[in-house]
C-alpha cells in the first residue's frame, strides 16, 4: 500500500490523506500549499510549507489504558452476544 503511494505523496505540502482528513480549512490550506509548491522551484522553500502537524502521524496511535480496557470489553461483550 505504502509503496504504491510513495510516488505521488512525497510532496511535503499535500497528501491525499491530508486533503480528505483535515476538514474544509485543511483542504483549502492543502490546496493552497500545493499550488505554492508548484510555483516554487527551490525544494527547500517547499519544505518550509510543510504543515506543522502531520496527519499521517495518526497511523500508529497510542492507546490509553481506558481505551485498551474498552477494546477488550467490546471483544468480550461481542463473544457473549454471539
Amino acid at each position: 500500500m505504502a509503496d504504491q503511494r510513495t510516488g505521488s505523496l512525497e510532496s511535503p505540502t499535500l497528501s491525499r490523506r491530508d486533503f480528505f482528513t483535515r476538514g474544509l480549512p485543511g483542504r483549502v490550506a492543502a490546496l493552497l500549499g500545493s499550488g505554492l509548491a508548484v510555483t516554487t522551484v527551490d525544494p527547500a522553500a517547499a519544505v518550509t510549507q510543510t504543515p506543522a502537524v502531520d496527519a499521517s502521524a495518526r497511523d500508529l496511535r497510542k492507546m490509553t489504558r481506558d481505551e485498551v480496557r474498552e477494546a477488550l470489553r467490546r471483544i468480550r461483550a461481542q463473544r457473549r452476544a454471539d
Partner: protein
Amino acid sequence: MAESPGVAARTFGITRRLALKVGAALGAVAALLGSRNAVAQAAKAAGADAETLSDALGGLFQKHYKKMSPGEVKEAIGRIERRAKRQYAADVTVGTEPPVEGVVFGYALNISKCKGVRKCVEACVAENNTSRDPQVQYIRVLELDHGDMNLNRADHYYEAETVPRPGKFYLPIQCMQCDNPPCVAACPVEATWQERDGITVVDYDWCIGCRYCMTACPYSARHFNWSAPTIAPEALNTDMHYLGNRPRPRGVVEKCTFCIQRSRKGRQPACVEACPTGARVFGNLLDPNSDVRYVLENKTVFRLKEELGTEPKFWYFTD
C-alpha cells in the same frame, strides 16, 4: 406499409424473446457438456497424473465450507489430499479444527525490540505454503526513521544484511485480524468471514477473486494469486488446515490466519516462534493471565490506523 408499426414491434418482440430463450437454453446445455468434455479430455490427455473426473466435478459443485455436511467436508479434504499427492508427491493432512470456546486470539508486537531481520517473514512463508514465485508474503516489515510514524515514507525494500541501521526502526505489518473487519463486509459472496476465535478466514474454493476485500483492507494484508502458486515439493508444509495453509489455486485471495493450523492446536504462530528478539507475543485475549493480556494492561500500547474503527486485535507496544 402492410403492417402497422405496433404489429411489427409485437411480432419482433415475440421472435426475439423466443430466440433468447432458446439460445440461453442451448448455451447452458453446451456449456455444461463443454465443461464436462473439457475435464474428461484433459484427464485423458494428462494420463494418470491428472485429476479424476469425479474429483473435478466434485470440486466444481463443492458447497461453501460453512454449508457443507461433515461427509462433504471429508470428501473435499480427500480431494485436497489427492491433489497434493499428484502435485507435490506429498502425503498431507488437512485438519478442520474448530474454534476453541472461550478463546479470542490477540497479538502484540514490541517495536522497540524488532530489529528488522525478517525471520518472521521467512517462517511465515515456510509455514503457510505461500508462493515462492511469484512471492507472496503475509508479513511486510517497514523501515522508518526514528520519530517518523508516516507509513508513506516507509521503506519496504531495505537490505536485510544491514539491519538494524542506525536512526531507523522497524514496523512489521500483517493481518490485524480486525474485530470489525472491512474485508468481510466487502466480500460479495461471503467467501471470507470471522470465526468465533477472532480469526478471519477465507474459503479458497468459494473465493471468486474479485479482490474487493483487498481494496477494503486498510492494512494491505490480503494477497492475490495472479498465477498458480509455486512451491518446491520438498518445501511443502504437510500439516495443513482447511481454512489455513492448504495449497491455494490461482485467482484467489489469501491472508494470514494467525497460523490457524498451529494456534488451534495450542501452538504459537510460526512468526512468534521464529522472532530472534522475542518481540512477538500471542495469546488469548479472554484469558486475564495470558501474556498478551499482560502486555495490553502494563505496556504502552499502539494500534495501527485505529481511527478507521476496524478494531484491530494486533497491537504494537514499547518497553
